[in-house]
């Protein structure tokens, strides 16, 4: 040390170059640790000495060195993250603690085996719950569909009651004609509500055909009032028909048409009635 109690310049330079004997270097380190002035001088001396590196011949690093470095960084980071569990993955494991961390990792592996049976049970329970959940979801969907059907039927019945109960509902009796001379039917039509209730007794239609009900207005072309898709026995069938306001129904006819119905009556007439 100098007379002022600080590191001498000569020692500073030798220490910076790593040329100070070990004993002197230890005393030097101890002093610098507690002396801000000398620590700053040392930092500057390190900076000056570092530049001597530029006296060496400059070598261009191999083209692959960056990729190799990044691969090593990735591999080391992944390895540290595994060892650091349950620490947060971005937490650095200090060098001195790495052995302790490895011991912890061994202990964890032991715990992992002990945890295997309960984990298996949990997996099985999860599968069972998932299966039950799926079954219940299917049942719920089925119930929902049935509930919607009942609601739709209830709505149709309410409409039918409205048509039948309305004082301005027109009743048209239908009589069989042609091939279905024994057929019989009745139509309830309410122009204000735009609803047609139809009931009839007819033999089943020919294969690939359907019975179609037509409203025959006082003026203009017949308007389709509904399609009897299943068979000739239709009881309480109800259709909404779009007819121009104040359309007066001259009568109703039933014809045999294609299975999906027709835009205008072309097939043979099986029932007819005038209002």
């Amino acid at each position, binding site marked *: 040390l100098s007379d002022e109690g600080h590191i001498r*310049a*000569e020692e500073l*330079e*030798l220490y910076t*170059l*790593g*040329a*100070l*004997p070990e004993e002197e270097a230890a005393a030097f380190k101890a002093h610098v640790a507690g002396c801000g002035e000398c*620590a*700053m001088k*040392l*930092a*500057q001396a*390190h*900076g*000056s*000495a*570092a*530049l*001597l*590196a*530029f*006296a*060496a011949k*400059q070598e261009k690093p191999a083209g692959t060195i960056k990729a190799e*470095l990044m691969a*090593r*960084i990735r591999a*080391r980071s992944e390895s540290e993250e595994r060892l650091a569990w349950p620490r947060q993955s971005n937490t*650095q494991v200090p*060098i001195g603690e790495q052995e302790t961390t490895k011991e912890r990792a061994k202990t964890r592996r032991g715990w992992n085996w002990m945890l295997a049976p309960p984990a298996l049970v949990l997996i099985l329970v999860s599968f069972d719950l998932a299966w039950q959940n799926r079954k219940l979801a299917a049942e719920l969907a089925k119930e929902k569909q049935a509930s919607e059907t009942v609601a739709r039927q209830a709505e149709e019945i309410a409409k039918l009651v409205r048509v039948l109960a309305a004082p301005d509902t027109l009743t048209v009796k239908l009589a069989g004609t042609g091939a279905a001379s024994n057929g019989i039917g009745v139509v309830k039509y309410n122009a204000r509500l735009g609803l047609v209730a139809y009931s009839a007794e007819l033999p089943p239609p020919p294969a690939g055909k359907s019975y179609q009900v037509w409203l025959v207005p006082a003026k203009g072309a017949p308007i389709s009032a509904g399609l009897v898709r299943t068979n000739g026995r239709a009881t309480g069938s109800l259709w909404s028909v779009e007819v121009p306001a104040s359309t007066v129904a001259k009568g109703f006819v039933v014809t045999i048409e294609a299975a999906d119905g027709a835009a205008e009556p072309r097939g043979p007439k099986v029932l007819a009635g005038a209002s």
Partner: protein
Amino acid sequence: VFYQPWRNAKRIMPEPCSLAGWMLVATRKRAIAKLRRKNCSNEELQEREVVLSADLETHAAQNLLVEKVRTVMASLPEGELEALECAYFEGMSDAEMAERIGQLREAVRTRIRSAVETVKKVLS
């Protein structure tokens, strides 16, 4: 050497430590440890503070610095240059240098100090 500052720059290099300076010091220590077949742990590379007065940010500045360093090294007396090279590039202690050069330790220390002073003057 690259890995440490990548992971712990703030911890191992508190302000006003220079990254470039830290890398130069750490790389030299690692190279010398390899040369002398010493075990150089990561702890040894943790030079906490290196204050660099020179600008190393651009290739142009680095090239100028290389020129300056080489010029000043070439201008050193032979004995000082030899001592400086033994210390910086071979990591010799003062006793080893004294033996290599055939001088007393005090004489070696004087040469080192004189050489470093000359270099500092030119580079500052």
